[in-house]
């Protein structure tokens, strides 16, 4: 009787202590999560909010726009900035360079993941070196060459360098995807009489499609975000991609930077990318970490 009385409070104290510790760690975890989310998303949120503020309200630093206005978006597509053209240019440059680089990368990655040959490690190391290449090292000679060819302000002056940036990255991502695929199915198809090309086309391509698509998205984002080469090779709206256009926007007067319009442009340029990234986040993370990859 007395024993039971003395035992009970100790257990409930113990339980309360455990509960308290658990609650404290939950709170700590929530604080940590909030910090990570704020760090990553606040600047993006601020871009979104600023884009919705009219020019007279843009400096008030309200965390929510008092009266949301689409004035900046209208200015963006008005005659002064004509942002439709940079979007078109970026789309053409990024799509063409991604498609070409992807096509070439698929063949290389197939060889690197599936075939046995000498100096494979060396080949991979060379491709890795290429993916860390500084763009400035190729800019001067290409700029001189393209000037002589009258290619300045034309798409190919940006597409060609972009291919060389996307290609090593794509090969790396695809090689790691291909290595993890169930290739026994290819062997099975070959036993059943399919040629190597047939097995590739009918078995491997459908299996590889998700990985290839992910690689394409990552390569596309790289080309869409390219700035260094484009800032030298493009002159006006005829070929300027979005990154260059946004950095060059002009306001009402020369000394007033049109931040509202620039933020609106940033939103237009990044929201589609972010939606794609959100939809494919698991695969993209796998692709990025497999490739080791530059930011």
């Amino acid at each position, binding site marked *: 009787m007395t024993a039971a009385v003395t035992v009970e409070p100790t257990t409930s104290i113990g339980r309360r202590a455990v509960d308290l510790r658990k609650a404290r760690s939950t709170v700590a*975890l929530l604080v940590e*999560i909030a910090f990570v989310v704020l*760090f*990553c998303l606040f*600047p*993006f949120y*601020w*871009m979104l909010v600023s884009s919705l503020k009219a020019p007279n309200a843009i*400096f008030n*630093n309200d965390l929510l726009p008092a009266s949301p206005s689409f004035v900046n978006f209208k200015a963006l597509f008005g005659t002064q900035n004509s942002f439709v053209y940079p979007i078109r240019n970026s789309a053409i440059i990024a799509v063409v360079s991604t498609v070409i680089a992807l096509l*070439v990368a698929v*063949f*290389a990655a*197939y*060889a*690197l993941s599936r*075939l*046995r040959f*000498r100096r494979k490690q060396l*080949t991979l190391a060379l*491709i890795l*070196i*290429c993916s*860390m290449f*500084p763009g*400035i*090292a*190729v800019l*001067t*000679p290409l*700029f001189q*060459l393209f000037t002589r060819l009258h290619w300045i302000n034309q798409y190919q002056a940006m597409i*060609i360098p972009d*291919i*060389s940036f996307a*290609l090593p990255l794509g*090969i790396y991502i695809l090689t790691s995807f291909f290595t993890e695929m169930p290739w026994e199915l290819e062997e099975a198809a070959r036993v059943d009489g399919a040629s190597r090309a047939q097995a590739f086309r009918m078995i491997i391509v459908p299996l590889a499609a998700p990985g290839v698509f992910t690689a394409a998205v990552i390569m596309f984002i790289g080309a869409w*975000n390219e*700035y*260094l080469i484009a*800032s030298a090779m493009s002159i006006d709206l005829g070929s300027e991609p*979005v*990154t260059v256009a*946004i*950095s060059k926007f002009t306001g009402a007067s020369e000394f007033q*930077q049109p931040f509202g319009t*620039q*933020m609106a442009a940033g939103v237009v*340029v*990044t929201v589609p*990318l*972010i939606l794609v*990234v*959100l939809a494919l*986040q*698991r695969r*993209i*993370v796998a692709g990025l970490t*497999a490739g080791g990859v530059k*930011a």
Partner: protein
Amino acid sequence: MAVTNTLARRTVRADTDRPRDDGRPAFWLLLPTAVLLGAIMGYPVLRALWLSLFTENDIGTETNVFVGLRNYQRALFGSDAAQFWGSVGVTALFAVVTVALGMIIGLMFALVMHRRFRGRGLLRASVLVPWAIPTAVSAVLWQWMFQTDGIVNALIGHKIIWMGGVWSSRFAVIIADTWKTAPFIALLALAGLQLVPDEINEAARVDGAGPWQRFWRITVPMIRPTLAVALLFQIMGALRLYDLPAILTNGANGTTTVSLFAYQAAINQTKFGYGSALSTLTFVLIFLVGFGFVRVLGARVSQSAGAAR
């Protein structure tokens, strides 16, 4: 007799077991890559080396004068030595500080993301946002946030003129770059953390190791190869930093990186010879750092690069 027989059989088997060599198809599959990379990367690098031996003043003027190594002399010891070495110093400063901050913040984020809770996918997705935003856009965004009447000053409650001084400008570049790279390091570190088996941590916990001890004695050694790869990529990325200082500060207040310095000479001033010398120096600098890094951490990097595949 029986012995030689089995030996013969063994060698026959060894023959059929020898890895087949697909050298020929591999050659054809890799040829397009080799041609493209050779034409767009290999050729320009060699061409830059050649151009760097000449003076060339303007587009169209073909009056190249062979000057030997004078362009290099000018940058390394001559009239531009202070500017060139200044840009090397700034680049090194940015690389060291942003990579160190990025590794610390990235590792912390990875530890948070590694915990089990609902909505983990959402957290991972938000970490991808800074990566997906073009650096050029983020540069304009930070330029806006660092305005004197901007949100950064409003949040910290001080009126700092960020773009007015040397160290505040440099700090602005560092903050903007860390914002973009730290989440990326977090993703790489998280991939490393996921390779650490739970049992090891559990066993250490049962043996009485505290959380701090487990972190330093188990987690860190086990994710070190992943961190080494992340470190290599981030250092290489930081050394070629161009977009951010070009847009955020335009190289003002001691924020001119080597890439930006070379760009200004080659493109803005169209000094192709001198610009080529600068871009070649940049390339050599980055290559040497990367090479040294791989030599120091070599075994580990190649090991984990192998594991990544």
